[in-house]
């Protein structure tokens, strides 16, 4: 299973008369860790919603290894191997932690809408869910309702669900938002481990995380890409400093 490349060609999105994404062209190379940064309201999450199919694009093209995504509903995009997390935790809150992971594994393991197999008898599936549970370090919370987990635990579960289904392109929307320093460090290590060999695109506000994790950084301001390149180049970029980094660093 090789990592795919993700391409955006002149992607635009308007809500009514307001154009939120104003012609974004972006190449995310296979196997790359790509960070998307930018001030609030720049359209980072909107871009995620366009790529993952949550919103329809107004114009432009999004392709995953050459396959058009922008005409497909979210579940079809997911089946092509693109998975995402949400800025606001999105889990199955009344199901147990293990059930959440198992649900995230089902489709990729070919169970589809089966109503003739018993989940408890699917040994390989359950072992995979248990392994994932260990990976995100929630083994001790296995049978607890996901809605009752702590915030950081829910974020970990969300990342676990996002990487569960053998997706080769992973989109993480502010995975460390609202976490303490130690929790952030832990989450970064986990993301690094779980997205090994996959194409990763993440929105992140924490600059330490961005410069620590990303191979390439793209800066989005008011729906437009103002710079894209390796961390060192972005750090040195004058426009970026003026538009964004300077204000934060000061």
């Amino acid at each position, binding site marked *: 299973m090789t990592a795919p490349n993700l391409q955006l060609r002149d992607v635009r999105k308007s809500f009514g008369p307001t154009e939120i994404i104003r012609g974004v062209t972006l190449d995310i190379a296979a196997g790359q860790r790509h960070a998307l940064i930018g001030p609030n309201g720049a359209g980072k999450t909107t871009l995620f919603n366009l790529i993952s199919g949550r919103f329809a694009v107004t114009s432009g093209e999004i392709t995953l290894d050459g396959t058009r995504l922008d005409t497909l509903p*979210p579940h079809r995009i997911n089946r092509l191997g693109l998975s995402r997390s949400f800025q606001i935790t999105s889990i199955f809150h*009344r199901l147990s932690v293990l059930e959440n992971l198992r649900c995230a594994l089902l489709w*990729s393991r070919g169970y589809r809408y089966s109503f003739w197999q018993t989940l408890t008898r699917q040994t390989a599936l359950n072992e995979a869910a248990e392994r994932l549970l260990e990976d995100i370090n929630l083994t001790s919370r296995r049978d607890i309702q996901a809605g009752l987990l702590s915030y950081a635990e829910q974020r970990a579960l969300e990342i676990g669900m996002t990487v569960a289904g053998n997706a080769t392109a992973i989109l993480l929307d502010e995975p460390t938002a609202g976490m303490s320093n130690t929790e952030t460090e832990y989450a970064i290590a986990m993301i690094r481990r779980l997205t090994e060999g996959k194409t990763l695109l993440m929105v992140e506000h924490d600059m330490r995380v961005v410069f620590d994790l990303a191979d390439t950084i793209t800066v989005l301001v008011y729906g437009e890409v103002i710079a894209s390149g390796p961390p060192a180049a972005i750090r040195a970029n004058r426009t970026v400093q003026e538009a964004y980094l300077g204000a934060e660093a000061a």
Partner: protein
Amino acid sequence: MPWILMLLVAVILPWLFRDYTHGRDNGFMTAMFSQMGMMIIFALSYNMLMGEAGLLSFCHAVFFGFGGYCVAHFLNAIVVWVPLELLPLVGGVCGLALAMIFGAMATKQRTTAFAMITFGIGELAVTAAIMFQHFFGGESGITTDRQNASSLFGINYAHGLQVYYLVVAWTLVAALGMYYLRGTPLGRMANACRDNYERAQFVGYDPRMVRFLQFALSGLFAGIAGGLYCITYEIVTYDAVNAPLSGNALLMAFIGGVGSFSGPVIGAILITALQSGLSLMSNSWLVYVGLLFIAMVTFAPTGITGILHAHAPIVRNRRLAALAVPYGRLMLPILVVLVGFVFLVEMLSFVTIGAAEGKTIDIFGLTPDVYAPLPWVAMVAGTAIGIAWLRWEARRFFVVWDGLMTEIAPVAR
């Protein structure tokens, strides 16, 4: 274990009410137990939507009734040989087929929009039942004779008890089937779509497809229940597709508890018993059932099983005895409120209906003078005092309850 226990109870039950001196079965009780069986299937199939998939349907009786009508026509014009024992399955297949058609419409939406569509479907079915005389038989319905069909075991089903055991067998099969479905990928994804349909999309599932399949399968089981209804009563009228029956499904599932598998079973048994028992005792029995529903939804939205479940940690810690006195203290004001309220309802019912029918009033063996002010004043005051007293006791109860919960919380974790 609970399955075997339930089956044993179901098998023994009619024999407890048998009149041994005359060697006769209690026909009323046997009929009520049969009704309970089909209502258990019906309520469980409703909960496949309500509890498992979070879909509030107002047209569930349509599939029940359609299953019943189909079996009636099947019995009247047997073309293909199907033994009576397997006829409920014919009802099920017809329920499934109709649920696939209507489900394709309704499951396009979820939440309120879904509920509204099902409401429309329910109205449509009732209108159709009155309009299309050939199929639905108008107001008089379709009558049939279950003895038209042959039996796999050479049973003639002339006897109510034989029909009852057929119902028991099918209730067991259907309940096992629905229990099995909960543990399958589809069943789990129905829960997932209920909790967060958007997340379900991003793990590869089409929530609409999940809803559709769940809806269709619940129609299958409702149709089985309808088939049993037809076999039991040998008549199907448009009451079987009508809105009150759909409402009953909601009532049974909700009062029993939509959060667990046993909830709708308990709800079906309780509501059927109330309908059969209370309706013999009082004209205004529906008032009591309605009030029970309001009280449950307001104060215990998790239903009876939800209340029982809340006690589980207390039982585990062997502290249930600590609640005995607080519960006892609650009973007294509850009794006062009930007596006061029952008197008010019955007196009112007597003044408006009963007196005109030339009946004499009799409430718990008492005959209050409904034209004098005293009984009214006394009962209004009694009810009001009872409510105030109950609220006061309830507060005390929850102090004890909360104390217990904090006491055992560390252990439960």
